[in-house]
């Protein structure tokens, strides 16, 4: 038996005669290394992001999966940061909530300075990068893929961050979105997409993700960031089509059970 941890009585400081109270194997008591949880529990699935003519659009569904169960259906995975940026997260939801806590502190700090200086999306992204990388180095990562979209001085910004790997692009996605949505973005994205075209493109991809990603649900939010600021939509649903011929009589062609 290893004597790992310190007994309650010992910690409180009162005397305990340990030599007789408990059988103890007096080999060198090895303290196993401190470990942190390294797998996620409640997770969010893909986040999509595209730049368009007037700014940036982010989209995500509102599901929080507990393994294979879609347990929570009103998780807000898109959060405004400051006045001109939105953070979207996939992965462990509690880690995302902690990250937004840190960012809120940063924004509050700015507010208290009252000197007209503000954290722009580029700075927030850099900060997140350092945060993620630092945690990863301590073997205690934030289990998230973060998408940061924002507009500053007319420059649109869209970046992804995951364990300290960061990159920027005109269109980004996390998780399944990388496999299903990015190809569609590559075909259809243009620099001068209007708001309607951008939303249509996102909705098209969200629907595909709903069809094919088992952890997604038909309840989405889209965030729009422009020079004027941030607008996150109310939750909405799309109209899926289950009217495919193959679905009409699924047992047709199956020769009975064996």
């Amino acid at each position: 038996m290893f004597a790992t941890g310190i007994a309650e009585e010992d910690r409180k400081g009162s005397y305990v005669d340990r030599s007789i109270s408990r059988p103890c194997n007096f080999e060198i008591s090895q303290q196993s290394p401190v470990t942190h949880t390294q797998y996620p529990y409640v997770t969010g699935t893909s986040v999509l992001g595209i730049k368009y003519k007037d700014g940036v659009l982010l989209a995500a569904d509102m599901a929080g999966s507990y393994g294979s169960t879609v347990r929570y259906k009103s998780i807000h995975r898109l959060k405004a940061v400051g006045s001109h940026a939105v953070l979207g997260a996939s992965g462990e939801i509690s880690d995302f909530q902690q990250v937004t806590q840190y960012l809120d502190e940063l924004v509050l700090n700015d507010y208290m300075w009252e000197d007209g200086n503000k954290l722009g999306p580029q700075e927030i992204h850099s900060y997140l990068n350092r945060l993620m990388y630092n945690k990863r180095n301590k073997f205690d990562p934030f289990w998230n893929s973060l998408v940061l979209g924002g507009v500053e001085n007319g420059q649109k910004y869209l970046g992804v961050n995951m364990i300290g790997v960061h990159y920027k692009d005109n269109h980004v996605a996390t998780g399944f979105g990388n496999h299903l949505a990015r190809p569609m973005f590559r075909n259809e994205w243009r620099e001068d997409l209007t708001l309607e075209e951008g939303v249509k493109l996102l909705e098209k991809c969200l629907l595909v993700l709903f069809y094919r990603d088992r952890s997604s649900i038909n309840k989405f939010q889209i965030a729009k960031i422009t020079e004027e600021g941030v607008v996150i939509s109310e939750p909405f649903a799309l109209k899926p089509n289950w009217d495919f011929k193959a679905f009409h009589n699924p047992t047709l062609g199956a020769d009975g059970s064996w």
Partner: protein
Amino acid sequence: MFRNQYDTDVTTWSPAGRLHQVEYAMEAVKQGSAVVGLRSKTHVVLATVNKASSELSSFQRKIFKIDDHIGIAMAGLTADGRILSRYMRLECINHNFVYESPLPVGRLVLQVADKAQVCTQRSWKRPYGVGLLVAGVDQTGPHLYQNCPSGNYFEYIAFAIGSRSQAAKTYLERKYETFSESSREGLIRHALLAVKESLQDEELTTSNCSVAVVGVDESLTILDARNLKLFIDGLDESASVPAEDKQADEDESKEQGLGTSDGSGSDVVPMETS
């Protein structure tokens, strides 16, 4: 200022409610050679009087680049000033590392002021004996600040500190209303004319003054001897403003492989330009 029994310790108040040690520290600033700063809507200029302790020596460096967007000029104990400039450089670089963006000037100035305040409230420390004029540009535009040994800081459109700074301040007070719309060259001219007031009898040459500029689109540059000479010569013609020798400047910097160079005086012992 007369000696009295309440001035031995920085942590001892006088009955009149003063901290004499802090005030003596500000005296040290007044003993240093003059430093002038002024800003327009787009640029901030710092100019200093360089005193060489003897004809054989080189002058004390009083202008320091803190970051691409911030520079300082100091008056007083330049050794203390070097420590502060090292601190400021670290803060800027740390901020840049985390946020990949320049540290706002006002915040840096506040941090320096807080650092100075600590030294006015510890019995085992002494106040910094240096006054700083901090020139910088950030998101909210160009700024000029002064940091005192007392831990106070102020923002200015134009200011001067150090010995005979009153003469420079008088000149600035006369002209400050034109600074906001000034061109870069005009601003440098005003700075040199203000410094000239502080020199009183001496002639203004490239070896007894230094000038640094930072602007909305311009990283902090300390004018080199050649360009400084152009400006100084141009002071005599009141109307015209000299165009900077930009092409030659570029050739020289290509040789050196760097963008900026020290304001080393051509008449003094040649210093390493790096």
